[in-house]
C-alpha cells in the first residue's frame, strides 16, 4: 500500500542525478515564492505511456489550430475528428500554441462545444486540451478557460470516473490561478459540487478532488470567504472518513485530504466543530498507523502524509474543546507518544527538516499533561530525545522546552531526570553560541536545581560554573546566569 511508485505524473526522460539537481533548484525557488506569499503549484495529468508512444509534439500555428478545430467539429468520420483533437492537444503542450489558441476568435467556444458534445472520445480529448491550457504558466491562458467552468462543475455529478478526474485536476489548476477565478467558481456552486462528488468510491477521483479542494483552501481569502461554507457542508465529515486508517486507506488520497484538513485547521475558523466530528481521534489513529507503516517499509514518501497530520494534531490540541473529548483515542493514550518517537527517528534519517514539527507536537502533548510527561519517563524516551540536541538550534530549543515541560511538574519528575545523561547534555548545550538554546538550558537548570538539589552539586563538580560564566556578559542571559550561580553555590 505504501509503495513508492512511478507516478502517472512523472516527467519523462529525467535521470536520477538530473532529478536531484532539478529538485534543489526548485526547492530554492519555492522557498522564495513562499516568502513572497506567492507559493502556487499546479498539477499536470498526462498519460506518460501514451506520450512515449506519440513522440515529441510540435508547436502549432494559427492555421493549423483552425484546421484541427474545424476537423474536430465538422469532420465526417469519428476517428478523424478524434485524431484532430489529439493533434491539437499535443500542440497545446507548448506555451506558444496555447497563446495562439486563446488569441483565435471562437476557439474556446468551439472547444467547449466539443467538451459538451455526446461523442465520448471527443469529449475526453477536448477535456484534455482544456487541461493543458489550465496548467499554463501564463495567467491569460488559464483565465481564458473560465467559460468552461460551469460545465466542468456540471460534469462532476456525472458517472465517468476518468472524465471526472480530469475535470477535477483542471478545476484545481484554475482555482489556484487567481482570486477572480474563485470569485466565479464559488457562486457557480463549487462547494456543493465537491460535497456531492466526494461520495465517489473511485480512488483516482478522490485524489483529484482532494487536490482541487486543497487548492481552494490554500487561497489567501479562504479563511473568510471559503472555509466557512466548507465547514457548513458535508465535506469535513467525508474528509475525516477518508482519513480513517485501515485496509481501504489510499496513501495518495490521504495525503491530499490531510493537507486540506491542515489548511482548514490552521485558519482557525471553527476547529471546535472538527473536534466534535472526531478529528482528534481520527488523526491520532492515523498517527499510530503511520508509525506502524514506518516500521514496515523502507522508503515510501510517508513524510508527505506525516507532515500535515502532525500539524493538524498540534494545532487542534491548542483548542479549549480538547478537554471534553473522548472517543477512540483518549488524549492521554501513550501510544501517541510512542508513535511520535518512531516518526521522529524516521525524520532524522529521511527528512530532518520535519523534526521541528514533530517536536512541536510533543510540546503540545506534554505541556499541560502530567500523564504524557510520565509516559516520556516510563517509556525511557529522555535519552533518545537528548540525541536530537545536536541537530540544529531550532531542534535544540524544542527538545529543551519539552524537557522543561517535564521538569516543571515537580520533584517526582525531576527525580527521573537526574541522575542520567541530562546533566552532561546540558553542559554541552551551554557551550552553544545560540542565545535561545543557552537561555532554554538555563531555564531547565533552574527547575532541576529547584526540585533536585543534588543535581546542583553534580553540576558544580562537572565544571558547570565555567560553562555558565561564558555567558555572563550576554544581555539576554546574564540575570539568569547569576541567579543560577547563586543557587548552585549557596543552595
Amino acid at each position, binding site marked *: 500500500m505504501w509503495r513508492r511508485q512511478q507516478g502517472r505524473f512523472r516527467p519523462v526522460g529525467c535521470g536520477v542525478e538530473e532529478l536531484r539537481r532539478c529538485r534543489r533548484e526548485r526547492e530554492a525557488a519555492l522557498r522564495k515564492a*513562499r516568502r513572497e506569499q506567492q507559493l502556487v503549484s499546479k498539477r499536470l495529468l498526462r498519460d506518460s505511456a501514451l506520450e512515449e508512444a506519440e513522440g515529441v509534439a510540435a508547436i502549432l500555428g494559427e492555421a493549423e489550430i483552425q484546421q484541427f478545430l474545424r476537423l474536430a467539429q465538422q469532420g465526417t468520420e469519428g476517428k478523424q475528428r478524434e485524431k484532430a483533437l489529439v493533434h491539437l492537444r499535443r500542440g497545446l503542450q507548448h506555451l506558444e500554441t496555447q497563446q495562439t489558441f486563446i488569441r483565435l476568435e471562437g476557439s474556446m467556444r468551439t472547444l467547449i462545444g466539443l467538451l459538451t458534445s455526446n461523442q465520448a472520445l471527443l469529449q475526453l480529448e477536448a477535456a484534455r486540451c482544456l487541461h493543458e491550457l489550465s496548467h499554463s504558466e501564463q495567467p491569460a491562458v488559464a483565465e481564458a478557460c473560465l467559460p468552461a467552468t460551469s460545465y466542468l462543475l456540471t460534469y462532476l455529478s456525472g458517472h465517468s470516473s476518468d472524465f471526472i478526474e480530469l475535470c477535477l485536476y483542471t478545476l484545481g489548476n484554475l482555482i489556484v490561478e487567481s482570486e477572480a477565478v474563485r470569485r466565479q467558481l464559488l457562486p457557480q456552486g463549487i462547494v456543493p459540487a465537491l460535497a456531492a462528488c466526494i461520495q465517489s468510491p473511485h480512488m483516482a477521483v478522490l485524489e483529484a478532488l482532494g487536490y482541487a479542494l486543497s487548492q481552494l483552501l490554500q487561497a489567501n481569502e479562504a479563511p473568510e470567504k471559503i472555509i466557512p461554507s466548507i465547514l457548513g457542508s458535508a465535506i469535513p465529515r467525508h474528509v475525516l472518513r477518508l482519513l480513517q486508517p485501515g485496509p481501504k486507506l489510499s496513501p495518495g488520497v490521504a495525503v491530499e485530504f490531510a493537507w486540506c484538513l491542515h489548511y482548514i485547521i490552521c485558519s482557525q475558523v471553527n476547529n471546535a466543530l472538527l473536534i466534535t466530528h472526531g478529528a482528534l481521534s481520527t488523526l491520532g489513529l492515523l498517527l499510530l498507523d503511520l508509525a506502524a507503516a514506518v516500521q514496515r517499509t523502507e522508503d515510501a514518501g510517508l513524510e508527505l502524509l506525516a507532515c500535515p497530520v502532525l500539524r493538524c494534531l498540534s494545532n487542534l490540541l491548542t483548542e479549549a474543546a480538547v478537554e471534553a473529548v473522548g472517543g477512540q*483515542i483518549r488524549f492521554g493514550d501513550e501510544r501517541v507518544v510512542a508513535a511520535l518517537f518512531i516518526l521522529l527517528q524516521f525524520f532524522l534519517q529521511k527528512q530532518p527538516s520535519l523534526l521541528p514539527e514533530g517536536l512541536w507536537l510533543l510540546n503540545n502533548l506534554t505541556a499541560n499533561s502530567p500523564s504524557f510527561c510520565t509516559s516520556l519517563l516510563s517509556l525511557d524516551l529522555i535519552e533518545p530525545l537528548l540525541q536530537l540536541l545536536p541537530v540544529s538550534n531550532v531542534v535544540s530549543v524544542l527538545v529543551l522546552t519539552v524537557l522543561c515541560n517535564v521538569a516543571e511538574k515537580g520533584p517526582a519528575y525531576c527525580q527521573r531526570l537526574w541522575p542520567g545523561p541530562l546533566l552532561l547534555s546540558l553542559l554541552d548545550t551551554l557551550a552553544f553560541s545560540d542565545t535561545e538554546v543557552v537561555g532554554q538550558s538555563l531555564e531547565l537548570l533552574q527547575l532541576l536545581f529547584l526540585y533536585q538539589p543534588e543535581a546542583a552539586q553534580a553540576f558544580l563538580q562537572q565544571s558547570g560554573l565555567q560553562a555558565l560564566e561564558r555567558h555572563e556578559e550576554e544581555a539576554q542571559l546574564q540575570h539568569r546566569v547569576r541567579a543560577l550561580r547563586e543557587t548552585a553555590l549557596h543552595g
Partner: protein
Amino acid sequence: MLLPSALRTRLAEGPGEAEPLPVVRHPAAGAAPFRFAARRGRFSREHEFFEDGDVQRHLYLRDVLTQVAEAPERPRVPEFTCQVAGCCQVFDALASYEHHYHVLHSNVCSFCKRAFPSGHLLDSHILEWHDARFQILAERQDMYQCLVEGCEEKFKTSQDRKEHMVKRHLYPADFRFDKPKKSRGPAAPGATMPVSAKAPAGHGEQSEGDAMEVCSDGHVAPSPVPAGESSATPGLPGRRAYSHRIPATVCFGQGASRGFKSTKKRSKHH
C-alpha cells in the same frame, strides 16, 4: 536515534494512559529572572515555521518527488461491443467503455433519447419536458428549479430561472444544458404538452445525433455540431432537420406512451 525496543511493543499493545506521577510545584519555578511556563503553541498559515514542510508539499505537487499513489490498473481486454441496442461501438479497454457508456447510455431520456451529464439534469429534463402535470402545476406555483447543485430556488418560468443562474451563479447565458424547448412542429398530436405563447423552456438540447448514433462501420455517422454553433454543417443537413421534426407520437417502435408519465422512468432500453 536509538529507541528502546519496548517502544514498538508498546505501540502494538492496546490503548492506555500512564498513571501520572504527582505534580507538586514550587512558586519559585519560572519566577524572575526566569520565565519558563509550559504552554501549547499554535502557528498560523503563513508562519515561517511551516516553510520546509510547505516546500516539500509543493515539490510533490509539481512531481519533482515521486508519487506515493498506486498507478491505477488499466487492463486491456479482448475486444468487445457495447451491448446497448442500436450501438455497435467496439472497445478494448474498460475505461473507455465506461466513459462511452456514461456519456451515451446512462442518463438518457427514454422519451426523446437526449443524453445528460448527470441524473440530476435528466430528472429535471423529464419533469419539465415530458410531464404534463408539470405544465399544469407551473401555472400555479414556482416549479422551475435552479439547475445548480445545492441551490434550492424555484422559479415561475424557465426564463426567470435562467436569469437567476446567470446573475446569481454566474453561469453562461447560453448554458448548453438549459436550452429552451423548441416547438415540436405543427401537428402536435394529443396536445398533452401544451405549448404556451412564450416558448416553453426546457433544457437539455444536446448536440445533434445524440440518440441517432449509427454503427461506425462506414455508414452515415452523425455530426454532433454543438447546438448554438452557427456554422452550417456540411454533409448531413437532412439528418439534422429530421431529428428536429419527429412528431411526438413517433417512437421508433419503442412503445413509449404519452400522457401522464412517472418521472422515475429513465434510460430504459426496450
